């Protein structure tokens, strides 16, 4: 049986007032800003220009160049992969399919692992 989620009100919401106050301050500052008319883009493919910009080439629409950031992102994704796998890996040497869901509990309470059964 499930119950619908209830909104938990209480004193633990008090620190959230800081976030509300910050929003009031930011909205006041932002609504008073006057921007000129948006320049928009000229004619030309935006997607193609994004691709050119990432590789330090100039495309139809002007942009700054981002080749260095692109290369660093490649290294960053490798670093994140190494870090995440190092943290998440389980020791025990039973292999990747040996999580807690792959064991069967027999009638007498003993736990049967995959290697012992004769599937």
């Amino acid at each position, binding site marked *: 049986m499930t119950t619908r989620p209830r909104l938990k009100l209480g004193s*633990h919401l008090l620190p*959230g007032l800081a976030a509300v106050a910050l929003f009031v301050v930011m909205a006041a500052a932002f609504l008073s*800003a006057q921007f000129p008319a948006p320049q928009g883009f000229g004619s030309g493919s935006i997607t193609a220009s994004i691709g050119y910009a990432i590789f330090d080439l100039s495309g139809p629409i002007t942009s*700054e160049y981002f080749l260095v950031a692109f290369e660093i992102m490649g290294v*960053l994704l490798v670093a*994140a992969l190494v870090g995440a796998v190092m943290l998440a890996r389980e020791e025990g040497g039973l292999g990747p399919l040996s999580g807690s869901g792959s064991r069967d509990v027999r009638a007498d309470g003993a736990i049967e692992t995959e290697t012992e059964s004769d599937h």
Partner: protein
Amino acid sequence: MVPSQYYLVLSAAVFCIGLFGILTRRNALVFLMSVELMLNAANINLVAFSVQNGNLTGQVFSLFTIATAAAEVAVGIGIILVLYRNFNDVDVTTATTMRW
């Protein structure tokens, strides 16, 4: 065309909702979701002002922030996994073995 300051107010609202989630929720995964909200608030800003300023810098940089957020979540979930295995709970307030 909506004037650009309303995009600023929208992104400020999303940012503050994320900040509210960080300040009030105790679940580590909800904390991560709130950080994602704050990062996406910056993306709203970047794309809106890319049109305002007429260059593509904002849009390209928003692609980079999206990728960075994904990498950060990967490492974050790894850390939350290790937290769960040690403390059997994803509550950020249970892990207080080190005092002042």
